[in-house]
């Protein structure tokens, strides 16, 4: 996993609430390889029924080319647990999603892939999205160590992040390796459980 320290990049505003993972990767593309999935992300929002790009959709607008930060609305990433909803963002350059709230599974999946999900106050997120619409191509700067977001208006917001997840992201630590270092504790747990719940085997 790529470490995450700081990021200063163009941000793209996505106004819909409850963007579900079926919108990010429609189910019919789930068996495609990762490169193809990266190409079709947000397919039904980006293209109309005849496969023509919808010019009004933000990700089709050239001013946001090269964006690495997505600023979304409440309950982003709800629905199916599909992890490709995170990897397609990553593969399209996004390392951060800012939103008032996320679905729990999407939120966890972000950290597993080196993407930083940031929760900010709903009014502030709305304000940032408005600024990004008003000046397309505006940039946001993120500093994970200091837990700050520097908005296009020069205003700094502080965000909360679990110190466990923060450490893993800053160092690019992988969960499996970390957990394997607790093997002694796991084995001890299993020995205890064999006595109290023998039927589980």
């Amino acid at each position, binding site marked *: 996993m790529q470490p995450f320290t700081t990021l200063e990049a163009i941000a793209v505003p996505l*106004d*819909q*609430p*409850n963007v*579900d993972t*079926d*919108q990010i990767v*429609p*189910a*019919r593309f*789930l*068996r*495609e390889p990762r490169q193809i999935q990266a190409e079709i992300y947000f397919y*039904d929002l980006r293209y109309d*029924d005849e496969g023509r790009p919808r010019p009004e959709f933000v990700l089709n607008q050239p001013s946001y080319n090269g964006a690495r930060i997505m600023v979304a*609305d*409440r*309950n982003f990433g*709800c*629905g*199916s*647990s*599909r*992890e490709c909803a*995170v990897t397609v963002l990553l593969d399209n350059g996004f390392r951060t999603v800012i939103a008032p*709230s*996320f*679905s*729990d*599974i999407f939120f*966890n*999946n972000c950290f*597993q*892939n080196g993407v930083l999900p940031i929760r900010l106050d709903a009014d502030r997120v*709305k304000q940032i999205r408005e600024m990004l619409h008003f000046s397309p191509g505006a940039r946001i700067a993120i500093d994970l160590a200091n837990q700050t977001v520097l908005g296009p208006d020069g205003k700094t917001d502080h965000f909360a992040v*679990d*110190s*466990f997840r923060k*450490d893993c992201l800053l160092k690019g630590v992988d*969960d*499996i390796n*970390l*957990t*394997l270092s*607790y093997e002694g*504790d*796991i084995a001890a*747990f*299993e020995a205890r*459980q064999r006595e*109290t*719940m*023998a*039927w*589980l*085997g």
Partner: protein
Amino acid sequence: MTAATMFEKIWRRHIVVDRDDGYTLLYIDRHLMHDGSAMGFAKLRERNIKVRRPERSFATPDHYVRSDSGRIDDIVDPRHKRMIEQIGENTTAHRVTLFGLGDARQGIAHVVGPEQGITQPGLTLVCGDSHTSTHGALGALAFGIGTSEVAHVMATQCLWQRKPKAMRVTVDGQLGVGVTAKDVILAVIGKIGAAGAVGHVIEYAGSAIRSLSIEGRLTVCNMSIEAGARAGMVAPDDKTIAYLEGRPFAPKGADWNAAVELWRTLPSDAEAVFDREVRLSAADVEPMMTWGTSPEDALPISARVPDPASVADSAKQEAMQRALDYMGLTPGTRLDELPVDRVFIGSCTNSRIEDLRDAARIVRGRKATVPAWVVAGSGLIKRQAEAEGLDQIFREANFEWREQPGCSMCVGMNGDIGKPGQRIASTSNRNFVGRQGPGVRTHLVSPAMAAAAAITGHFTDVRQLPV
């Protein structure tokens, strides 16, 4: 010890390591796998690791199974076929129990777990699928995870978790005639919203929940995720114990007695405090349906299509308008006048025997006026339904009794999708844009309501069809 919620008790029993930064290494008792778990196995292969506890892991193909044939050679799309072949190869290589095609026990993972007695009170259970919340109906702590976490559980039998908060949804009173578990959960989601329970584990309580069968509780817990909850649970009681007794993977003999003794200690203590409480009166719940593109867009069948002009918040207004445009609806139209083009009865929400009986009761002696499918949740359910003659009732009414259990039209990954613009009455759990195929309009309803719509050709208050 202070009073604890059921969630708290199960959580505590599974702590391997508690870090002072708020993260817990939680032990996972059961891992369910399906045909989408191939990527988890691939991650394991990259590291040359084996599944740590294969005897705690169970697999069944569901998403990519054809609904008209259980033969793997009939699967035309080579990529779908590969997904099903892989689950066989991976479970053999890792010595994981498989309920594969051709095995009557095959079905939707969330139907198979409880049916086989794999799901039990007091256990932690995960699956790489968001509707894992279903299993909490038996008093387990069960939640969905992503692929990286699937690989993590395979490798370590544990997960790093931050403890969710506890929420109690109490539904007291008696449900009216024609009102089912599906209507209850749609009413709950309509009330608290699609993100209403994010970060929480919901315990469903109250007399109306206790009076539900295990099947009904499974339906309620299934859709907890549509309210954003991490998990849903119902305290185990006599019904839970009776349901589990004798199931293949349930404890036996002396183990059974020990297990029951433990299960009796799990319900939340009377003084336990929840972080949030929500109350609903069962008498207020009507047969429900969704009108929009989020499960929170739920209304009683007696209602009308809502008007965006009636909400103050401009963002909400826009979201509503977008949903109405996609669904092809005009504000003010009576919901029970909306025509349907197709009906789907199935999915991990509503494909159990009781659901099929409910639908058959409405269908008996009548004819469907639009194409309607019934897809059983498992081979054993299908067999049971056929033994009860339900398949005959459906067939005589021109319903299609599909051959092979699986997810089918709930998500359409196997190719079972509707046509653009079609309006579908579906007993599944998600009405997202494009969920049942590009441009398809999904309305979520109970099995009885879906059956009624198939008969009349429009959404219908099931209470108006005498049985």
